[in-house]
Structure formats: C-alpha cells, structure tokens
C-alpha cells in the first residue's frame, strides 16, 4: 500500500561536544542569592532599620521550634493554593470566552480592568459583608488577584492565536469547545503561563491583605501583627518565607511550562 518508501533512521554516537565551558545556571542562581544576602547584610550594618541575617535566622529558628512558622505556612499555603488554583481555573475559560466572542469581551473587559485597579485592601470590607469572616473572603481576595492577572493574559493569548491553526482545526471538524481545549489553550500557553506567573506573585503579595480578615494564623497575619510591634525580625522571616514559597511554586510552573511548551521553535 505504501507508495513512498519509509525512511529508516540512523543513529550515531554523540559527537564530541564543542561547547565552551559555561557556568551552569544553578551555580549562577546560587551566586546571585549569596550576593543578595550579602547586600542585605551590608545594609543591616549601615545602621538603617534592617535586621541582620543572623538575627532573622535566629528568629526563624525560634518560630520553627515553637511550631508557629509551620502552622502559618500551612494556613497561608492552603489559602494561596486554593485561591490561585480557582483564579487560574476560572481565568482560562473566561479569557477564552472573551477572546472568542466579541460581545462577551465588550461586556466583561471594562469590569476586569476596573477591578484590577482596586487595591485589595479596599475590597476587604465588601468581602466581609458578602462572605463573612471565615476562609471564604480570604481565599476570595487571593483568587481575585490571580484571576485578574491571568484573565488578561489568557485573553491576549486567545486573540494572538494563529488563524491558520484555528482554521486547520475547523476544517478537521472541531467545534468551539474542542478548539478551546486542543488548539487555543496549547497555542496560548505561553501567555497563560505569563498570567500564571504574574498571578502567582500577586496571590502571595495579596496574602497580607487577605489575612487582615480575621485570620488566626498565617504568614500575612504574623507579619501584620509583627508590624504593630515593630518586630522587624519576624517581618523578615515572613517576607523570606513567602518569597521562598513563591519562588518554589514559580519553579514548579516553569517546569510544567518546559514540559508543556517544548514544542515551540524558540531560540
């Protein structure tokens, strides 16, 4: 049946690499982190109101030992994961609807851009009135931060999808929902990723605001109450913990991206 002869594959031993000896990325990242801690140390020595790394480390050890940090991390991580997950999960279909059906966009976009400009702090009274003081309003505030970043990115991604790919899917019989799942989402995954990365940052950055709402524990709450007592070491422990958790989640996203967008023909 085959009229064109199948090509046969030939495999060769790997050719001797000619790459210049390059410093591996992780080493650079380590150097960068060490340098950053150095700058911090330097600043703390200038007499400015910045606690030294050692002081912060000691405080962190204290907080770990009495279990506070662990409990705070769990409480905050849970809120961020749920809020962020819901935000991204909703942003992708809404962004698609906005990009696909112009009237939906005309109806929704002004509100999204409007709510983007509202500081999370200002939303809190409304959130409490509508959702009480349990977990819901806290997660909602985080959700909103993730959602609003991600939906704009998804929208732009959908608008940017190459028309010929959509056409190719349509002539193969694909309906709108399949085009969403199998063409638009993969094609706009670089945009969705940008939205997720920015949204992830926003989620964590909003945590302090979210935990103003009657939180009993959580990293944001801990920082907030430490601020009232000018307890800089605790604030720094909070900042660093949030930073490290955010960084780790970001790496997970990047890893996922590398797997999902390896098809791209980029540099």
């Amino acid at each position, binding site marked *: 049946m085959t009229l064109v002869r199948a090509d046969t594959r030939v495999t060769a031993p790997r050719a001797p690499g000619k790459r210049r000896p390059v410093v591996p990325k992780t080493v650079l990242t380590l150097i960068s982190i060490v340098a950053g801690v150095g700058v911090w140390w330097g600043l703390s020595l200038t007499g400015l109101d910045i606690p030294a790394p050692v002081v912060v480390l000691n405080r962190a050890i204290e907080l770990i030992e009495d279990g506070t940090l662990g409990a705070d991390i769990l409480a905050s991580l849970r809120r961020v994961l749920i809020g962020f997950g819901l935000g991204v999960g909703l942003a992708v279909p809404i962004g698609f609807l906005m990009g696909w059906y112009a009237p939906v966009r005309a109806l929704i976009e002004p509100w999204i851009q409007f709510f983007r400009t509202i500081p999370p702090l200002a939303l*809190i009274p409304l959130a409490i009135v509508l959702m009480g003081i349990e977990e819901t309003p806290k997660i909602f505030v985080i959700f909103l931060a993730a959602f609003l970043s991600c939906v704009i990115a998804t929208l732009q991604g959908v608008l940017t999808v190459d028309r010929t790919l959509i056409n190719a899917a349509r002539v193969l019989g694909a309906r709108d929902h399949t085009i969403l799942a199998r063409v638009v989402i993969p094609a706009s995954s670089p945009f969705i990723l940008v939205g997720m990365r920015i949204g992830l940052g926003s989620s964590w950055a909003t945590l302090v605001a979210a935990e103003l709402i*009657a939180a009993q524990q959580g990293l944001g709450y801990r920082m907030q109450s430490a*601020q009232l007592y000018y307890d800089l070491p605790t604030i720094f422990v909070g900042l660093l913990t949030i930073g490290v958790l955010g960084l780790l989640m970001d790496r997970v996203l990047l890893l996922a991206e590398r797997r999902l967008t390896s098809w791209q023909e980029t540099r």
Partner: protein
Amino acid sequence: AGEKSSEKVTFGYIADYNGTSLLAVAQDQKLWAKQGLEVSTKVFTNGPLQVTAMNAGDLDYGYIGPGAVWLPASGKAKIVALNSLGNADRVIARAGITDLSQLKGKKVGVPEGTSGDMILTLALQKAGLKNSDIQRVPMDAATIVSAFGAGQIDAAGIWYPLLNNIKAKKPDLVELAKDADFADTMAFPTAFIGSNAAAGDAARTGKVLAVLHEAMAYRAAHPDETAQLVAALNKQPVDAVKADAANSKMLDGSTDDATAKKWLSGLGEYFVTAGKLPSNPDPATYYVGTAAK
C-alpha cells in the same frame, strides 16, 4: 540663637482632630515663625510609619495614639509632650449581651495594637476572663465596622467616630466598657514624639514645645475655631471633626510631670502584661517633655 535665619522642622501627624488640631492652630496663628522655626508637616496614617521615617532621618517630630506608646517606651523615640486623653474607646456587643462575662466564647473583633485592643484587654481583665476565653478575631478598624454591621462578629473593641457608623446600622448595640471605667488605673494619652536625634537638640525641642503649648492654650480657649481650622486643613466636614473632638479630653499644657509619668507608667504596665514590652521602663527615660522646658 538663630534669630536671623529660621530653623527647619519636619513634623508628622495623623489627620484626625487629636493629631491635627495643634498643628492647624500653630499654622493659623503663625506660632512657628514666632519661634523662628520653619515647619513642614507630613501626614501619616499610623504611628509606626512615623517612627520608621524618624529613624531614617526624614522626620523630626510626630504624633502617636496611646496604642503606640510602647514605641517610645522601647527606646525608638522620645515623647516630647502629651496632647490629649482619649475617651473614645468602647467595648461593644450586639443586642442581647448585657455583661462583659457573657463575652465568653463569643467572636470579638479587635484591631490589634490599638486603643481598641487596650480597652478590650482591660475589660476582659476586669471581668476575670482570659484572652483564650473569647474568640479573638484580629481585624483592622474599618473592617470591624463592616463585620459588626453585617453581624459577623458578636463584640468588638472599637472607638468613636467609627462607632457612630456602627450605631447607624445597629442602633441597639450595647457599650460594655469605656475608657472612663478605668480612669483610676489607666489613661489613654495621645502624644507628640521626637526622634532620638531631634529630642537631643534641647534648644530646638524647647522651641517646638513652646509652639505646642501656645497652641494648646489657644485650643482650650477657642474650641470652635480650632475645629474649623482642622476641618479646613483635612478637608473634612466640620460636624465630623467636632464629634471627633468630643471624644477626647484636650490637655491645655498644664499637666505636671508627675501626672504625665503616672499615666505613662500605667500604660507601660499594660504593655508588659499584654506582652508587648519585656519590662516597664521608667517614663523618665523616654519622656522629655519638661526636661526641655
């Protein structure tokens, strides 16, 4: 000394009647120029930020409420003068709760580190309750207004004028405790503070004190005009400012050192029991009001 060229002073404040009134008077009556000072005022929303700015060298003097007195007490700044005694704080509860002891197990909103926190702590002590006997729900002051109004919390430590907003929604709320209930053991002074550096400059601090005292005298003599001045400066309605003014007892500058130190030491006591200060320092170490006089 510097008669010819005026000395520069930066002064922080909070835009309520307590925080603004003396500065508004001083500006209107040109009291600064009289002392050969040239002032630049900076508005803040809380005390700790002013202390941060002081320690960064950007601010010479500032204003704090009673809840922030632990800052100077722990050596971050010096108190240069007492301004007023707060009488605005209340412990409130929803209708049906008639006594402090009934707060047990209830959800109580508290803006941590403020005078609302203080009045609640004192009230609980008086009723023989521990912090763990109630469900303490930390939230900021504006949030308490919403949460109480929406019935999300049963009680709260809060103050006027915010309390007026709550009353508009829940006219049947009950006031379980007020500042005056603790008048014999505790006062709630607001204060002017100076950075450690600025307070060290006795000559200039003396001039600043002179301005403040003269303004206090004017304020005591002309309450209505003062309210007008504050309303104009902060762009707020005069009625709101007047209502705010009614919640505090304005000092007129005649408070003697012993009384001031008694109030401060009482506050220090509270901060120690609340765990915010390791020990209660002698007010003389951070109160320089008369020393500069």
